[in-house]
C-alpha cells in the first residue's frame, strides 16, 4: 500500500488552479524528486501533500500508517519572523513536538534525537546561537535538523539546498541518500538541481502546472520531456553554447 496517493488532484488559490491532473503514488523507501520551472506548482503540491491545502478537486490520501506527525517538513520559506528570539537548539527540538501528542514536555529520547541530528548536520557550534543572528545557509541547516527530528517515516523538503555552499550541498545530498537507504525513510524533495535529482532520486515527478511526467528516474532520462529539461539546463549551465548536450543521452 502506498504512503501517499494522489488521484486526479488539483490545487488552487482562490479559484485559480495552480496545479492539476496529479496522479501518482509514493511508496515506502522511495526517493521522489519534484522538478519543474518557477511557478509550476511544486510548493503548492507539497503543501497539499502535508494537508495544509485542501484539493480543489480529486483526492490525496495517506496510507500505510503514515500520519502528519511522522513527516518532517522543510518549507521553502519559513513563516518564522526575522526578529524572533530563539536559540537554534530550541528550534531544532521543536521538530519533535508533533510526536508528543498531548504530552507537555520533551523526553530524553527527544533530546537524544535532536543531538543526533545536530551531529549529522555538523551544527553543534550553532546550538546556543540566536536563530535570527545566523546566516541564511546556517538557518537552512537548523531548519533541516528540525525536519529530520520530525521525520519518522517521511521527509518532505522544499528546495533544501537553496542557499547552501557547494560542499554542504554535496554532503547534504549524501546525507539524505544515506537516511533514505539506511532507515528506509521516504524522501520527497523539490529541487532545481536536475542533475543531482536524476543522480539520487528513484522517481521523478515533473510539473508544469499539470503533471507532465511521473515514473522511475531511468525512464525519465530517456523520455522526451526529461531529455528536453536536462538538455535545457545543461546548455544553460555551460554558458549557452548552442545545442551543447541536447539529446546526447
Amino acid at each position, binding site marked *: 500500500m502506498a504512503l501517499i496517493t494522489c488521484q486526479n488532484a488539483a490545487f488552487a488559490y482562490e479559484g485559480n488552479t495552480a496545479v492539476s491532473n496529479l496522479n501518482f503514488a509514493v511508496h515506502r523507501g522511495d526517493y521522489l524528486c519534484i522538478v519543474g520551472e518557477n511557478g509550476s506548482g511544486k510548493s503548492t503540491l507539497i503543501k497539499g501533500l502535508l494537508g495544509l491545502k485542501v484539493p480543489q478537486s480529486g483526492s490525496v490520501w495517506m496510507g500505510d500508517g503514515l500520519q*502528519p*506527525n511522522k513527516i518532517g517538513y522543510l*518549507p521553502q520559506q519559513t*513563516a518564522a519572523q526575522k526578529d*524572533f*528570539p530563539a536559540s537554534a537548539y530550541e528550534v531544532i527540538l521543536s521538530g519533535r*513536538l*508533533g510526536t508528543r501528542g498531548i504530552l507537555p514536555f520533551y523526553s530524553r529520547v527527544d533530546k537524544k534525537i535532536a543531538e543526533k541530528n545536530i551531529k549529522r548536520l555538523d551544527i553543534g557550534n550553532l546550538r546556543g*546561537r540566536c536563530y535570527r543572528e545566523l546566516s541564511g545557509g546556517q538557518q537552512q541547516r537548523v531548519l533541516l535538523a528540525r525536519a529530520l527530528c520530525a521525520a519518522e517515516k517521511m521527509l518532505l523538503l522544499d528546495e533544501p539546498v537553496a542557499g547552501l555552499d557547494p560542499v554542504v550541498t554535496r554532503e547534504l545530498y549524501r546525507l539524505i541518500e544515506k537516511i533514505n537507504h539506511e532507515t528506509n525513510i521516504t524522501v520527497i524533495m523539490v529541487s532545481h538541481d536536475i542533475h543531482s535529482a536524476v543522480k539520487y532520486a528513484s522517481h521523478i515527478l515533473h510539473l508544469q502546472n499539470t503533471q507532465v511526467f511521473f515514473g522511475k528516474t531511468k525512464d525519465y532520462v530517456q523520455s522526451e520531456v526529461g531529455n528536453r529539461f536536462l538538455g535545457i539546463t545543461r546548455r544553460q549551465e555551460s554558458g549557452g553554447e548552442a545545442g551543447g548536450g541536447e539529446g546526447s543521452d
Partner: protein
Amino acid sequence: MIDILLEMFSYTFLVRAVIVGLLVSLCAALLGVSLVLKRYSMIGDGLSHVGFGTLAVATAMNASPLTVSIPVVVMAAFMLLRISENSKIKGDAAIALISTSSLAIGVVVISITTGMNTDVCNYMFGSILAMSKSDVILSIVLAIVVLILFVIFYNKIFAVTFDETFAQATGVKTGLYNMLIAFLTAITIVLGMRMMGALLISSLIIFPALTSMRVCKKFKSVTICSACVSVLCFFSGVVISYLQATPTGASVVIVNIIAFLLFWTANSIIRRGYA
C-alpha cells in the same frame, strides 16, 4: 524601606491588590511574549476596551463584574483571533471598530445609569480599591489556572509562535493553541483591568516582553526574564504609588517604561562593547 512595606501591608485591601496584581502581571508577561511575537499586541488592547464596556454594563445591571466580563471578553478574543488570522489589514481595522464600539457603549450605559462619575475614571485608569474578597479569590484561582496551562503548553506555544505552518504540518493542532492563547489573554486582561485600568492594562502585556527582548536571545530566557521584569515593575509601581499617592496603574506603567529604557541602553552598550 522595611518599615514602609510593613506599614503598607497592614492594610488588607493593599495586600489583596498586591497579590492579585503580582499574579496578573506574571500571567500577562508570559502571554505577552507570544502575543508580541505573533503581532497580536493589538488584540490585547482591543480586549481591554471590550472589558471596559462589559464592566459598565455589569455595574448597570448590578451583576458581579467578573462573571459578566469573563465570558464576553473570551468570546471577543476568539472573534478578534479569527479576524486577524483571515487578513492582516482588515483585522487591524476590525479591532479598532470593536474597541471603540465597546468604549462608546460602556460610556453611554454609565451615563444613563449612574451618571458620569468617579466610576468611569476608575474603569479607565484603574483603582486599587476595586477588589472585593470574592473577586480576590476568583482572581487568584484563575491566575493560577492560567499559569499552569501556560507551563503545560509552553512547548506548543513556542512552536505555534515560531512557525505555525511547520507546527501544523507536523500534526500540531495550531488552531486549538491559538485559541488557548486568546482564552488565557482574555482572562488575564479581565482580571487585571480594574486595578490597571482599561486604557493601561495592555501595557502589562506588551512592555515586559519588549523589554526582555532587548537583551535576551532565547525564547526561554525571554519568557523568564519578562516574568521577572513584570513582577518587579508591578511591585515597585505599587510601592511608589503608595508613597507618592499616584494612581497605581499609571505608576506601574511608568516603572515599566523605565525598565524598558534601562534594558535598551544596556543592550546598546553591550553591542558597542563587541564592535
